[in-house]
């Protein structure tokens, strides 16, 4: 780069800006376009109630997606998130006293002990994954595939095909309770109207906020980005790469576990395979949002947009007349489009950085 010698500021280039920001701009455009589309296609879509509904439906996925954002930023993947969520949700129910008609050989314990045990099980899943990846050297794709099966196995053994319905009070509150209601005035019949804001939404927002603060403003967050950007360079700079990789896997497992606990309360039941769709949803949210699959680019802001895109698609398709089996295909196509943009943004970015 020759004119680098001159200290003059580089002229603003639209092309460069677009190449730089494609991964951030594209998801926002997608979101806006989808909202506009569904608003015109359905009268019931763009209502306050439905918007709130979308956010509520996203809250459990959102908590998982926070952990997954950490993992994907380091250019790893965690395929065990849904299975771990399921296993931890079942664990907390297993240690809670169940109604008589539930035929599970469970071990009732005080609520707070059940919660701690469930959190410890999430930690254990994370630590095993971290150990396998950093000490043994198993690629995350395969390691977490194995962990997915192991977590599913734990779920199966604990409930043995049965369904549990009771959880510690704290879990029930955070998973299904209403935090507060926003008064909306009085309707025509003279009845006061409220919008209830559920605890899962609050918890999800706290996770998103903390995740964002950690990634953007802490040293640990910077290490995550740098390890994702160039792992070898991070190692040569004296960053403890194994610690960073291992710790994001643990964080992801903890996020999944907490999402799982809230999830069983949110669903009102704890049983096998009830989180299956969350794996694809969480990965899709992170990737659709624009966080690079190659690591080092993106963040919680992207994940929020990704979650909203996903929520709007899932919800919006219910509001228009469409073959319900076609919906599955449409979701797949949207994910594919997002992947293309994701990879293309990386290619553009590298081209720009490749000045001679």
């Amino acid at each position, binding site marked *: *780069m*020759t*004119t*680098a*010698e*001159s*200290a003059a500021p*580089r*002229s*603003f*280039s639209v*092309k*460069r800006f677009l190449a730089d920001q494609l991964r951030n701009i594209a998801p926002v455009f997608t979101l806006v376009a989808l909202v506009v589309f569904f608003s015109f296609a359905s009268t019931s879509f763009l209502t306050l109630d439905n918007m709130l509904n979308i956010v509520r439906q996203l809250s459990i996925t959102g908590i998982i997606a926070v952990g997954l954002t950490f993992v994907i930023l380091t250019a790893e993947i965690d395929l065990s998130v849904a299975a771990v969520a399921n296993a931890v949700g079942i664990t907390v129910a297993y240690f809670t006293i169940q109604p008589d008609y539930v035929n599970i050989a469970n071990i009732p314990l005080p609520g707070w002990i059940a919660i701690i045990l469930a959190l410890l099980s999430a930690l254990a899943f994370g630590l095993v994954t971290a150990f396998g990846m950093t000490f043994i050297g198993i690629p995350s794709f395969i390691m977490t595939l194995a962990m997915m099966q192991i977590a599913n196995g734990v779920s199966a053994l604990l409930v043995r095909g049965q369904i549990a319905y009771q959880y510690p009070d704290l879990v029930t509150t955070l998973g299904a309770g209403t935090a507060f209601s926003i008064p909306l005035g009085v309707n025509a019949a003279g009845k006061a109207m409220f919008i209830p804001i559920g605890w899962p939404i609050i918890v999800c927002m706290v996770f998103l906020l903390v995740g964002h603060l950690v990634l953007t*403003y*802490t*040293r*640990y*967050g*910077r*290490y995550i*980005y*740098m390890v994702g*950007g*160039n792992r*070898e*360079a*991070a*190692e*040569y*700079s*004296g*960053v*403890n790469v*194994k*610690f960073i990789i291992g710790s994001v896997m643990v964080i992801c497992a903890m996020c999944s576990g907490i999402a799982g606990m809230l999830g069983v309360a949110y669903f009102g039941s704890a049983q096998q395979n009830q989180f299956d769709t969350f794996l694809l949803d969480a990965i899709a949210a992170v990737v659709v949002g624009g966080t690079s699959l190659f690591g*080092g*680019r993106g963040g919680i802001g992207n994940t929020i947009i990704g979650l909203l895109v996903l929520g709007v698609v899932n919800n919006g398709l219910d509001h228009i007349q469409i073959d319900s089996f076609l919906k599955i295909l449409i979701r797949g196509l949207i994910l594919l489009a997002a992947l293309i943009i994701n990879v293309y943004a990386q290619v553009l*970015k*590298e081209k*720009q*950085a*490749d*000045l*001679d």
Partner: protein
Amino acid sequence: MADQSHRAGGGQQPLLELSNVSKHFGGVMALQNVDFTLLPGEIHGLVGENGAGKSTTMKIIAGVHTDFDGTMKIEGREVRLRSAGDALSHSIGMVHQELSVVPDLTVAENVFLGNQPLTAIGAIDWGRMNREAKQLIASLGLDIDPTTTMGSLPVGLQQLVELSRVLFSGARIIILDEPTSALSPPEVRQLFEVLRRLRAEGRSIVFISHFLDDVLDISGRVTVFRNGRKVITEETAKLTKDMVIAHMIGRGSRGMHMGEEAELKGDDAKPVVLSAARVSDGRNLRDVSIELRAGEITGVYGFMGSGQIELARALFGKAPLRRGSVRLDGKPVRFKSTAAARASGIAFVPENRRMMLFRQEPVYKNVSISILDRIHRMWLKPRTEKRIAESHIKDLQIRPPRTAIPLGSLSGGNQQKVALAKWLTHLPRVLILSEPTRGMDVGAKEDVIRIVKSLRDKGVAILVLSTEPETILTLADRVTVIRKGTVAREFATGRIEKADLLAAA
């Protein structure tokens, strides 16, 4: 076509001609109004400081950069290349500095990569492939078994195999980017023999290099670039090294004989900071002992692949050692990770910039990554980081002097300075530098030399590993020569010359 048997001269129709070529990246002009001609059957040297425009010019010729102003003609006909593959179909081939060979495949497979001859039923015709690869390689005057795996060959031979791949595809214009930087002197001689043979066949070669001796030795004409412009094209016979340097840097040449010889000043009274005793890694290092003293630069010289890289990695905790002991301040240490080595005050700059830089990240994040734990407890303080980066940018004269632009938009020499800056905020106890000045232009080289010497004067124990005798002689206070993973000779005091190093290695 014009007379091929003759060396480059006037009056021939050029094989390749660039007229008034300009190229910019975004708002950055990389090339301005460049004219360049390549005659049939000539070896044309291309020199200039980093970022002077020689690589950009060659990437235009090789079809890598397709978007440029001006015209390009091959044998008088204007062409517009669309891709590297398109360039190849116009008989233009390029061998990049970083080889694109597949180490796990055989030599023959590498030669025919993507073009393997097939049998009638569509399977790879191994017999024919091996036979033809052997012929092709033999035509370069080499004797390599085509069934050996590429990775087991020395770099010099790998490079020649890659060259034969370009030849196999029928290239008449061959661009070599820094072909000698990784080669030992015998390998360079071997390469030059091959190049002369190719020239005699009427092929034209563009030889890009920082090694002016090599350029002046092999080429018939030399073109000098500076700041994105062509300065001069001249017959080599009319040039001296000093003249070329003067054209390159655009100022009076000075200190050019630096690095030919040195007066060593090893002082055994200085305290040993880091020492390795009879260390082996089971592969590339055997019983190597070395002592690094405070306030001294220890140079380790050896040809490519003689074990320097492995030694540096082992001392920084990147590669494990099988036998032997390492002591820091007399106490035995065994670094399990680079983080542990860094925590003990050891810093390392590897030979390949990509290994330690984040090209997409801004300059200041590249500088601060290795000191984050010193400046931040938990929350980042970007303003502090930028301030620190600014002070380094000023000290090291990094251009452009901006902290927030992506590192990848800096030239190679400036990137290398950033790599060094990472370790300068808090002085390390031991600084290990692998090829600290390789591939750098004269100005950047002098900056780095100045910085390294000032660090030594501040009491840092420095280890410099290089395959360039000049680098060692310019920097070192004492020298260890290693050969095939063992210490061949040590020099502590007195005058030594380049020839001494070459003879010992």
